[in-house]
């Protein structure tokens, strides 16, 4: 249900963007992406979810300020259900108590597109456009389990930063695809709760590496 809402929002965003005619003025494009996040807190996520990685879906808007420079806003969502655990002498005992983790980053990025020098007579866009950048973000983390009370649920928002790099491939005049990789760092997101496996493993960073495929609409 939540994914459907997110997909709808992304579709609306894509439909509402204003196609730009050229790169010498401000342009706006919408994008949607799907990928895989490998969390830095590897042991903790693996203990609860069975794997340190999981699918992530997102979307956002990218604004081209110049031909090379862009800024973007991206929201994404990771949501997986596993089980609470008990760890004894490095052995993880999976408990009959489901546990759902949701991570919702909102990232503001600025980047540079490596277009190179394009001869004026060439009208075809370059075959591949690498880009790189970085930014800040707010990472909403929530955790709830089958029989938790409101006090036992965790809902926090933590600030972090990220770097990104990728390569964009044009498909149509108004559509492109991209492979995007970004490393996020969200220090001190997990505290020292006695019932925290992250605390046990001394893993406090909510960040990770996300590799995603992206569809970009707009010119």
């Amino acid at each position, binding site marked *: 249900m939540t994914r459907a809402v997110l997909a709808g929002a992304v579709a609306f965003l894509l439909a509402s963007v204003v196609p730009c005619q050229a790169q010498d003025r401000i342009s706006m494009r919408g994008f949607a992406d799907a990928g895989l996040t490998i969390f830095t*807190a590897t042991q*903790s*996520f693996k*203990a*609860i979810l069975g794997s340190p990685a999981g699918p992530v879906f997102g979307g956002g808007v990218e604004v081209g300020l110049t031909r090379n420079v862009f800024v973007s806003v991206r929201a994404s969502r990771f949501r997986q259900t596993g*089980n*609470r*655990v*008990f*760890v*004894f*002498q490095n*052995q993880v*005992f*999976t*408990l*009959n*108590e489901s*546990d759902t*983790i949701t991570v919702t980053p909102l990232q503001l990025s600025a980047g540079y597109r490596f277009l190179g020098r394009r001869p004026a007579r060439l009208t075809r866009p370059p075959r591949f456009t690498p880009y790189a950048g970085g930014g800040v973000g707010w990472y909403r*983390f929530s*955790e709830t*389990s*089958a*029989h*938790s009370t409101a006090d*036992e*649920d*965790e809902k*926090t928002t933590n600030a972090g930063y990220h770097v990104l790099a990728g390569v964009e491939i044009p498909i149509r005049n108004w559509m492109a695809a991209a492979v995007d990789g970004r490393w996020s760092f969200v220090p001190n*997101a*997990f*505290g020292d*709760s*006695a*019932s*925290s*496996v*992250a605390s*046990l493993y001394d893993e406090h960073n909510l960040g990770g590496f996300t590799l995603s495929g992206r569809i970009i609409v707009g010119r």
Partner: protein
Amino acid sequence: MFLLKSAGVLTVLTLAVGIVTAQDSTPRYRTFISDTTLPGVDTGMRDKDAPRPPRPYPADVIMRSSGEAYLRGSIAVKFRPGTAPVAERQMMDRIGATTMEAPSYADFQIVNIDENADPEAAAATLARQPDVEFAQARYKIHPMFVPNDPLYSQQWNFPQIDMEHAWDVNPGAASSIVVAVLDSGVAYRNAVLRRDVPSWRDFFGPSLVTYPALGVVDIPFAAAPDLAGPNRFVAPRDFIWNDTDPLDLDGHGTHVAGTIGQLTNNGIGVAGMAFNVRIMPVKVIDSMWDDILGSPFEGTDDVVARGVHYAVDNGANVLNMSIGRSGAPSPLLQEAITYATSHGAFVAIAAGNDFERGNPTQWPAAYAPSIQGAVAVGATGRDRQRAYYSSTGPFVELAAPGGNQRTGGTTGGVVQQTYDFAFVDTFVNGPARYGPPRFDIFSYQFLQGTSMSTPHVAGFAALLMQQGITSPAAVEAAMEQFATDLGPTGVDQQYGYGLINPRASLRGLGLAK
């Protein structure tokens, strides 16, 4: 495999010592004439009863032996593997041993010595031999509860440890978990025992009196209505009567079993910790009526050790030992409990009730800290404070509700269904009012003691095992990690790690909280 091994040992011992008697080969000592009786009668809550005097136990009363803390005429010995029969015989000769027995469910031998010999001295002599792993007297074990003062009427013990919310997380475990109750037996089935009851002498009253013979009487038994259910009981075994009918002739074991697994949400009576588990009644403690009726065995260290082996070998996941004693250490019990935990069974052991009697070290509780997967349990009262009787020491690892009727009145004890003691303790009012007992009339009794706190931990362990923590050592760690610290900050000698917190342990660890 075990039988073959026993047979081999038996043959060797026969050659070495001469006469060998395996306890399993002894004849049946009693006969039940019927398996059907009327259902048990429930006489209701006994919260308005006048205070009862302490109920006597054979280990305290010493009806049929010398008044010492051990049996005379025999000791328990374990030889090192590979010891030659000739060497064993030489060692036996050194203490004047006559015969040696290889009991079932035991990796030790019972060596018979002269009745007048000092068993502790004989055991010490043998223990010094290089081929002897251990030797000890056959010390008597007794239940760990302190009977009644006046009280109030409510089951406060479960709210104290937040069980209502813990049951949300794990509603009473499952029938795949088996909890062995090593105790005075359990009221687990209906039966009628026909027995010629002889006269006996009272050693515990103000004066020595003789109770008359009752002749041949039919003694009725019934399953406890709030405990028994379809497929509830598994592999019953009686090491006091050496048969498979561990019927409770006391009420202690039935009360303990109730705290572990009393049927819950059945519209009857009270609740239990892990109400879906199966109960394995293993009788290792003799009561007054066992003694009066002439049971062939008493509740000594070696009998308890055999009970531990039996329970583990027959699939018990959790063992409840609301029993113990002070005095000399018991390598027998240490080894038995180690055997249990190393074979996947968690063991809950009463920490003892002797705080006001000099607070001596309690056995086998004192072994618990050195055995991962075994826990010694102290008792709290309704006020969450250590109960006045609860033994203290470095061996206390956890605390659980055991009741304190000194500060809490009658209902400050832990209530469970067991026999109506008025129909069991017919001997307490003297010979004139003495008569045959009835074990088919039940009531809800408030009792106090670490006997009552221990089954909370055993039931808790059953919940944890069903929840997914399958290793006894991890079960102990989960209990200790989430215990509510009481008394001085950190681990202390009154509460150990603190009061058990089942809900927190059952929830375990989340990613962040």
